[in-house]
């Protein structure tokens, strides 16, 4: 009952003095606005990285066995580099040995890759294409489907048939206005027959997944993609469920350690790279960004709190007589305290709400105008409102306590 009354009073106050209220709320508004905008963009990037890493680069529930880690965010020490450069390559034999011990339902693929500029009868030259030699389950692991044609079969893969599945961009660039299926595309002068075109994949981290071409691992593409020092680019293993991930990773680790005769005290001389390990590095970067992003809103909120405190002090002075009346009618200290606290909290929450709306708009605008993605999270809205109420209560504390301690006789005499 007090609460509704006090909130109503605060809102009436805002309505009567729109401009003054706007300036009062500016600090809180800007603070919350930046908070929402920063959090939205960081969260947006986070989602982007997650989809990019987990679904595009690696695949769901998938880890790569590699000689050295590929997705490394953060610093690498010279010692680490030296250790990496001494590592033996991951060979096809390694990959086969891992495969032999994988549990039922686990997918397995090997992958070699290089940048190649192919040639068609229509077009020669153009952007580089990620050219991959892969085994058949690679398509399932990376969730690659064709819009036209088909992927290659196990048989074609084992026999090394010169066939290729290309991404949308490759198809459009080399076969403008022509159906590429059945046509020849030359990689390093080796002719491959196009048997499928992939669905549009989009691009992540500036890398277009529509600019790739996939040929059977054992096909002549290996002449272009095989690097004897590096060995296989990766052995991709997809566990049947998230729960199986750790188990399957351990199996792969044991197989490799055994094959390489590593003693228990020796570190792995290969990398098992999961989306989790890659995302850990991102989390670190994200935390820095959030911390930096919280500084500016914090300044806004402090300024906002000071302004609200001043306004509330003015309100207490203006309404001294009202306080006297209320006290003479039986309002206790805590009634007066509550009234002014609710009023300043309401004021501040209104500011915070405007800030949330503006922040969300700002985030969406930035997302629209730049490649940065944005995602307005519910929790950031809740935090914004809570912060608003908190700032209001803290800012209102001193004025409200002054009001509550006014002497009723003096207050009644005030004009």
């Amino acid at each position: 009952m007090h609460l509704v009354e006090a909130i109503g009073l605060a809102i009436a106050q805002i309505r009567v003095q729109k401009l003054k209220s706007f300036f009062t709320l500016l600090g809180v508004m800007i603070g919350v606005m930046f908070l929402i905008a920063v959090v939205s963009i960081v969260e947006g990037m986070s989602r982007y990285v997650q989809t990019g890493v987990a679904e595009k680069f690696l695949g769901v529930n998938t880890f790569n066995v590699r000689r050295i880690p590929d997705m490394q965010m953060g610093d690498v020490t010279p010692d680490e580099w030296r250790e990496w450069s001494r590592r033996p390559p991951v060979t096809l034999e390694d990959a086969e040995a891992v495969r032999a011990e994988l549990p039922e339902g686990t997918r397995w693929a090997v992958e070699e890759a290089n940048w190649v500029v192919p040639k068609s009868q229509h077009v020669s030259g153009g952007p580089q294409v990620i050219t991959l030699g892969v085994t058949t389950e690679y398509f399932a692991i990376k969730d690659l489907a064709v819009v036209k044609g088909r992927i290659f079969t196990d048989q074609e893969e084992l026999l090394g048939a010169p066939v290729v599945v290309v991404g949308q961009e490759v198809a459009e660039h080399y076969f403008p206005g022509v159906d590429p299926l059945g046509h020849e595309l030359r990689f390093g002068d080796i002719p491959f027959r196009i048997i499928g075109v992939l669905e549009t994949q989009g691009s992540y981290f500036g890398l277009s997944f529509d600019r790739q071409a996939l040929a059977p691992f054992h096909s002549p593409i290996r002449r272009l993609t095989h690097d004897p020092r590096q060995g296989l680019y990766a052995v991709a293993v997809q566990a049947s469920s998230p729960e199986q991930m750790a188990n399957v990773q351990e199996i792969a680790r044991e197989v490799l350690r055994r094959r390489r005769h590593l003693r228990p005290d020796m570190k792995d001389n290969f990398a098992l790279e999961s989306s989790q390990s890659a995302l850990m590095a991102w989390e670190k970067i994200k935390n820095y960004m959030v911390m930096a992003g919280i500084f500016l809103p914090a300044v806004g909120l402090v300024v906002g709190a000071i302004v609200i405190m001043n306004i509330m002090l003015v309100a207490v002075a203006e309404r001294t007589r009202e306080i006297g009346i209320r006290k003479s009618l039986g309002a206790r200290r805590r009634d007066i305290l509550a009234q002014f606290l609710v009023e300043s909290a309401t004021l501040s929450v209104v500011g915070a709400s405007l800030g949330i709306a503006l922040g969300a708009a700002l985030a969406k605008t930035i997302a629209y105008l730049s490649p940065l993605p944005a995602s307005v999270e519910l929790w950031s809205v809740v935090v914004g409102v809570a912060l608003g109420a908190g700032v209001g209560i803290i800012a209102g504390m001193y004025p409200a306590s002054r009001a509550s301690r006014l002497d009723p006789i003096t207050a009644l005499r005030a004009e």
Partner: protein
Amino acid sequence: MSVESESVPLSTTAERQVVLGTEGVAPGQDWVIVTRGIRRDYDMGGEVVHALRGVDIAIRRNEYVAIMGPSGSGKSTLMNMIGCLDTPTAGEYWLNGVQVSHMSDDELARIRNKEIGFVFQTFNLLPRASALHNVELPLVYGGVSSKERRERAMEALQRVQLGDRVDHRPNELSGGQRQRVAIARALVNRPAILLADEPTGNLDSTTSEEIMRVFEELADSGQTVIMVTHESDIAAHARRVIVLRDGRVSSDERREKFVASGGRV
């Protein structure tokens, strides 16, 4: 009223001492206000001002009392004391059988809420609130449910003939109407005493008479009314007049009702 007039002796010099002193008066059901040697000192920048120098007053339930005195006599201080807005430097004050002279701020607030209905010279209504809301206010602080609040506030406004003005704000009402809203507000919690501070000070003579009639009716219906005023023709409406001078009671007289309504003293 007649019972009371008979039981309390009319003031003569000899009998006045009996009324003035509060020796032998037991604070309780019958005596709504009993003060014993109330003193109030103010420290005005090192110099101590004695506003009240030992006041003994006993007021029975259902009395209609005017407190008079020139400015500086201490009548405002006494009113603040009786209204529980202030506590005495020394002495005892019993209100409705409860000693309130040593209570804390919040306890006093509760007493003000339950036992005292204030009527001020300047009405002291909340300007932004409707008449109804103003009258509801003491019930809000008394913790009364909103439904009951509304009913009781309506009832109180009807009692002062303002049942048709409940949604008006103070600035939409005349002076007399405003004071009647204030009276309704003072009565809504059924207080032990109605305490009026110069209730007609801001009103013209016609309106003053109208307000005094309201007081008269309230007193007739059994409400204890205490009124602070410096106007003798207003004080003349009361059945008992206490005059303060230099922080002490200088006279305390009772009179029959017909004398009071008859006019001047």
